[in-house]
């Protein structure tokens, strides 16, 4: 039964679920080693930084509390 249901209910990966880099707004492909963490200041927003923005030190801003990193 469990096996059958696994095949009858495929997991749909919605494009909307792809994380977006907070700095460059680019969607981050699953194979990219980006980073995700809760806003260091308020802990209420998941901040995604793409690898390129992270390595370049591009600033980010938390939309909840306005904290500016890094």
């Amino acid at each position, binding site marked *: 039964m469990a096996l059958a249901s696994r095949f009858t209910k495929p997991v749909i990966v919605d494009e909307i679920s792809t994380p977006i880099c907070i700095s460059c707004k680019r969607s981050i492909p699953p194979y990219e*080693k*980006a*980073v*995700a*963490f*809760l806003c*260091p*200041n308020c*802990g209420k927003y998941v901040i995604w*930084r793409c*690898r390129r923005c*992270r*390595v*370049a*030190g591009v600033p980010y801003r938390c939309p909840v509390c306005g*904290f500016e*990193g*890094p």
Partner: protein
Amino acid sequence: MSSYDYEGSEEVKQESSMIAKYAAVELLVPIDMYLSAGVHIGTYSSNKYIEKYVFRVRNDGLYILDVRKIDERIRVAARFIARYEPQKVVAVGGKPYSFRPVEMFARFTGAKAVLGRFIPGTFTNPYLTTYVEPEIVIISDPRVDTQALTEAIEMGIPTVAFVSTDTKPSGIDLIIPGNNKGRKSLALLYYLLTRQVLRERGLLAPNQDLGVSVEEFETKLTTVV
């Protein structure tokens, strides 16, 4: 300029304009304590990323960091670190002056300390005996702890780093500005971070002290070869 005394001469500790500006501001420790440890002593270079933490540039070109901004970032970093399980926090210290501060931070907060030469693969190669899987990494000096930083980027692990004016924040997710070269400065920065993490976790009351002095966080001069 590499011979500059990062412990701070008496002259550099007398930041009267900073003392006056923050006289009414409540800091984690009195401003005199920050200044006498030399946490505000930057370097002779700067970059656009670190500019916002600079208080002033001396006539001789030495960048002076803003103690209030250091204080604020220690608080933010502590909130950030406190959200992770203690054993999932790894603090890295590659050079001798960071050994004791990092070791004490780890001992008090339950984090893991990685001291001395960072074995390549420590974060990336599960076959190594030294392999660890941190969920957050604390870097004492990005210019020294380069391998740890590279591997944290490679693995997508969030990073917090002590950053002086000579450093670009490449791969760093949260900067704590500060003098990461001086012995006393590293001791005070880690002491305050330790205390603040424990306060955030509710293991210390909001104004409670660690129970050991800052000196206990200092690498003793005799142990440095």
